[in-house]
């Protein structure tokens, strides 16, 4: 190990007796178990870990808490991993991003000198002409700038999990305020969830030695011991479920919290939410404020305490607040040499704070501002100005320890608008949404004892509200926030620097913001969109309020008027895999599925249903149906059973045609329209008794149809009961000239043409099982559709196959069915019709009974009837070459006038046939049309002729055999 390691500290997370190794850009590094990639590299003295987005500037550790973008690396093929929080694993392969050939020596850093030709919004102004070169520009630009690359050939992680958690009180943030809020809420009887992104609880207390204050349970204990005490209290409380290393990435409507934890996505629903996300230091603006070696003070302390790594040998602390002095003392206590404190204030802090930093060689500069960081690939010094005198201080570490600002983004996501508090000179949470509270530093509280007590009060108040008790604590909590007086405004000056970075994610400088405002983007929202400030991976954590202050200073207005841009989830990046969760795509199988599987068909997905597309070939299956007998599993058809004295009239109401006059034992075609007269669905209705109907729908529409029926039934007072029997019945369609012969072998029922004519229905036994038999003909042949209780479905299929074996029975799939029905020009709703198709123009005018008193879609249909047809759904045969693709345009003079909805090669007719929409005046038998062949044919067309009658058996004689 190098000597960048500090002596052991009780809170450190590394196990110094267990070494692991990994590689970074091919070079091997040794770390301790418990190290992060960032801490391990820092321990080895590596400062440069990444390159910036646009200028390819060297970047290193800044926040050490996963907030900023400056240490993003590729780990084992996963891009954009933050090295500072990614635990090291033995054998890990880490690579730098956005650099060539490596982050240490990036040839593309030449862009750092080209900022004058790459100003803010340059892509709106340059690389536009000549236009034909834009694809080249785009390709080059995308390769030169950006973040990590996704390996699209890599196998996705399929081990995602999703979990739903319900609680009374959810606390986000495991610092002292959050822990005590959770403890108090649990003590008050609430079921509590505590979400924290660290491995251990305690927040900033973990890395401090200064005594905690406030609550008696922790007052007086050194910070890290107070953290341990809080952890023990939380873990011992059975009413608290603690999610460690879990990030709350979104706070959604209804107090839903999205949490990512490892490979799990947890949806937490709470009755009350307490946001205790604390406050974080913000960067300071000066030339080269992004150099490796410029770090937040808390980051330096985290690195030292948790991982035992010294970030530098000579540190200069930059501050504008007492917080900086406290942190400086902690940094010194951690074993890091502080050579100077640069305070922008003009007066010294209290004596106790000064004493904490009183070490040999440490110099204090008051009223001082930073001009620049010195050094190229890492900090080697700092130049400051005091009383207009410039001086340089040799150092390798600049600790930015300015007043922490509340982390309010999560609150802002759920309507808690940030407001600017002039007394605090910070943005703090504004008016609360009911059920969502803030506690601790996030409220803008500075005094540690108040922070702790706010957590206690919030916990009690939240528990009361969740459990329906009086809200004494809530009112007290909401009104009890009083800050100590005497907060000085934050010193904020705009540096004249060329490279003072406001947004390190997007390489947006102060100069860029000035220019954008000059160009007219003087509203904070338009400035954001034009400059992309706050739009990077950190989502404004490092730059949100900074950008508002810069805007205000440039625009010459107050920060409160400038405001902040809208905060939206995710607060922290979440992978799409985590959001998608485990692969749970429901599928449905018919009762006959296993029989199909044994035949090895080509499958297709029809919505959630698995259906056989093809068993052998379309030609063979079509021939079997036309010449002998075929069988198809139609169990997926939606089915509703309607009972009650009002069922017939209800069906009349819902359809353009009549069903109340349908005799028992008869079947009628149905097509249903909505209020606008648009065809929604079709199928059949069979009357099985005086008050009993069986209705079929298309596969996949049953849920919508059932909802439609339920909607119109509700409150109508009709005596109708609607039962969805889709799953109850398996159904097969036996069809072909020999189908009657097969039927006679299976049932004692009289299925002759006379006893069971076309469009009739029977109930009885088939192969010994109870069945409803419908005489139908979707594919244009003599056919019997049998519905049996699904438990008998497989048995029935076997019985039919056995009975028809010597007659050449063959199963046929969806593809053959599509061809066969097309030969009859039987439309498929949703394929041949769309959201603008009415029954009249769809060739269904015959079923509209305009003399009915009323029905849904009546008025709209009447308007179309009166207006006349503008378009028409017709059949066509292709007279030229090729088979047009479904969806292709029908053209006239090169312009689309219609479209193909269905088109297939018919093995029966030995030609390509189809259906499509044409202008009404073209819907004439033999009218010639030109049809595009489809995508990839470069607009080539073929010729066709309109056919207004079915191609096969136009008189329907075979149906009615």
């Amino acid at each position, binding site marked *: 190990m190098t000597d960048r390691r500090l002596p052991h500290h009780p809170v450190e997370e590394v196990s110094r007796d267990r070494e692991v190794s990994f590689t970074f850009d091919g070079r091997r590094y040794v770390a301790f178990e418990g190290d992060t990639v960032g801490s391990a590299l820092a321990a080895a003295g590596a400062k440069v870990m990444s390159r910036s987005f646009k200028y390819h500037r060297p970047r290193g550790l800044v926040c050490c808490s996963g907030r900023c973008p400056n240490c993003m690396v590729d780990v084992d093929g996963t891009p954009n991993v933050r090295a500072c929080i990614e635990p090291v694993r033995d054998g890990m392969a880490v690579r730098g991003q956005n650099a060539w050939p490596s982050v240490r020596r990036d040839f593309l850093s030449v862009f750092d000198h080209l900022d004058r030709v790459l100003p803010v919004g340059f892509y709106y102004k340059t690389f536009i002409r000549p236009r034909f070169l834009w694809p080249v520009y785009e390709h080059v630009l995308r390769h030169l700038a950006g973040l990590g690359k996704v390996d699209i050939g890599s196998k996705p992680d399929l081990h995602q999990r999703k979990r739903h958690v319900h609680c009374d009180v959810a606390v986000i943030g495991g610092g002292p305020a959050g822990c005590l809020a959770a403890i108090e809420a649990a003590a008050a009887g609430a079921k509590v969830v505590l979400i924290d992104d660290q491995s251990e609880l305690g927040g900033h207390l973990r890395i401090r030695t200064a005594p905690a204050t406030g609550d008696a349970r922790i007052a007086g204990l050194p910070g890290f011991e107070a953290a341990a005490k809080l952890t023990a209290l939380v873990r011992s409380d059975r009413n608290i479920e603690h999610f460690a290393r879990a990030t709350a990435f979104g706070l959604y409507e209804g107090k839903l919290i999205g949490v990512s934890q490892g490979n799990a996505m947890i949806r937490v629903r709470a009755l009350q939410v307490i946001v205790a996300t604390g406050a974080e230091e913000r960067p300071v603006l000066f030339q080269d404020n992004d150099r490796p070696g410029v770090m937040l003070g808390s980051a330096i302390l985290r690195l030292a305490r948790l991982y035992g790594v010294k970030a530098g040998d000579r540190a200069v602390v930059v501050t504008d607040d007492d917080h900086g002095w406290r942190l400086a003392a902690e940094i010194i206590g951690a074993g890091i040499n502080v050579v100077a404190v640069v305070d922008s204030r003009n007066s010294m802090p209290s004596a106790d704070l000064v004493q904490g930093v009183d070490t040999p060689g440490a110099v204090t500069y008051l009223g001082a501002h930073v001009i620049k960081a010195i050094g190229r690939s890492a900090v080697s010094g700092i130049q400051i100005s005091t009383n207009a005198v410039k001086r340089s201080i040799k150092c390798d570490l600049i600790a930015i320890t300015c007043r922490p600002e509340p982390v309010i983004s999560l609150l802002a996501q759920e309507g808690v608008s940030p407001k600017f508090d002039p007394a605090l000179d910070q943005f703090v949470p504004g008016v609360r949404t009911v059920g969502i509270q803030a506690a601790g530093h996030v409220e803008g509280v500075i005094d540690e004892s108040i922070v702790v007590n706010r957590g206690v009060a919030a916990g009690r108040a939240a528990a009361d509200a969740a459990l329906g008790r009086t809200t004494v604590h809530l009112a007290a909590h909401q009104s009890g926030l009083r800050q100590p007086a005497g907060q000085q405004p934050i010193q904020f000056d705009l540096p004249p620097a060329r490279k003072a970075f406001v947004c390190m994610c997007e390489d947006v400088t102060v100069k860029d913001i000035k220019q954008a405002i000059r160009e007219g983007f003087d509203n904070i929202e338009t400035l954001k969109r034009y400059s992309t400030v706050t739009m990077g991976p950190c989502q404004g954590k490092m730059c949100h309020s900074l950008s508002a202050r810069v805007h205000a200073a440039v625009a010459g207005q107050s920060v409160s008027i400038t405001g902040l841009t809208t905060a939206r989830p995710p607060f922290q990046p979440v992978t799409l895999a985590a959001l998608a969760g485990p692969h*749970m795509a429901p599928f449905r199988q018919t009762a006959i599925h296993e029989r199909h599987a044994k035949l090895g068909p080509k499958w297709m997905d029809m919505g959630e*249903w698995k259906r056989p597309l093809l068993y052998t070939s379309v030609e063979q299956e079509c021939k079997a149906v036309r010449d002998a007998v075929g069988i198809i599993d139609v169990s997926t058809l939606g089915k509703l059973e309607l009972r009650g004295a009002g069922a017939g009239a209800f069906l009349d109401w819902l359809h353009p045609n009549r069903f109340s006059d349908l005799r028992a034992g008869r079947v009628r075609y149905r097509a249903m329209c909505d209020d606008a007269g648009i065809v929604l669905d079709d199928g059949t209705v069979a009357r099985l008794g005086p008050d009993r109907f069986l209705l079929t729908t298309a596969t996949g529409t049953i849920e919508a149809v059932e909802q439609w029926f339920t909607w119109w039934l509700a409150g109508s007072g009709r005596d109708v*009961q609607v039962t969805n029997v889709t*799953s109850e019945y398996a159904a097969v369609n036996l069809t072909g000239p020999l189908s009657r012969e097969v039927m006679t072998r299976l049932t004692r029922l009289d299925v002759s043409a006379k006893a069971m004519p076309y469009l009739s229905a029977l109930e009885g036994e088939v192969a010994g099982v109870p069945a409803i038999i419908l005489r139908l003909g979707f594919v244009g042949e003599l056919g019997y559709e049998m519905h049996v209780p699904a438990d008998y479905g497989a*048995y029935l299929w076997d019985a039919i196959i056995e009975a028809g074996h010597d007659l050449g029975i063959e199963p046929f799939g969806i593809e053959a069915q599509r061809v066969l029905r097309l030969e009859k020009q039987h439309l498929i709703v949703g394929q041949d019709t769309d959201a603008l198709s009415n029954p009249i123009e769809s060739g269904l005018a015959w079923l509209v009974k305009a003399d009915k008193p009323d029905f849904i879609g009546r008025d709209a249909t009447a308007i179309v009837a009166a207006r006349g047809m503008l378009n028409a759904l017709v059949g066509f045969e292709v007279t030229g070459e090729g088979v047009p693709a479904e969806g292709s345009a029908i053209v006239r003079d090169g312009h689309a006038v219609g479209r193909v909805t269905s088109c297939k090669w018919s093995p029966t007719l030995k030609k390509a046939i189809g259906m499509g929409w044409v202008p009404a005046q073209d819907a004439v038998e033999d009218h010639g049309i030109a049809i595009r062949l489809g995508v990839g044919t470069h607009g080539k067309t073929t010729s066709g002729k309109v056919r207004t009658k079915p191609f096969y058996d136009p008189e329907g004689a075979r149906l009615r055999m």
Partner: protein
Amino acid sequence: MTTARVNAGNSVRSSPLDALHERLNARWRAPCLRWPIDYGNPVAEAEAARSTAGLIDWGPLNKLVVQGKGTSPALNSAQVQFVIGKATACTVGGAMLDVWSDAPDHSILLSRHGTALPDITGQLVSAVDMSSAFTALRLIGPSVGKIFAELCPIDLGPDVLHDGQIVHGPVANVRVTFARQDLAALPGFTILVPRDYAAYMWNALIHTGDRYGLIPVGNHVLEER
């Protein structure tokens, strides 16, 4: 004339999970009744149900869906006891019946195979045999709550959903009807899955429950309690 089998009766009924049970080496209650009694290791299965979780195909049940405004009067006339919002058991004519009454105008009656369902008639009511429409799956064991927490967004905690209470909602992205049905001291849920989804639901439960020790267990587990 008829040449195929007639009066085939129950020997030709099959459940959607038959093939799956076969692959798991299920032993059947009787050859003609596709009702898994165990999967070859009844001791381990019982232990799983006690200590982690067991998934049971409750077998071929007769089911009747009764609905309409006249549901409650019709059930009362048939002397079927019910509690709206709950799955309860009662005896009608000496036969055990499970009554899932999820609304005043909708109930599902379930009975064991071989036990006839009562005749439900009346005004403004329909009773439709739906014996094939649902597969009833039961999960029993201390880990069932954790399994459901990964599959269902609804709060199913014992303090929220009491024994017998019925829920309509998504489980593994499929909308189902299910109820808390504890078995003695063991927490449990019964799901009525549309049979078309049965294979998917079984696999989803097993896949999710694997990390919690969920295994398929036979109906003997129910009979031992």
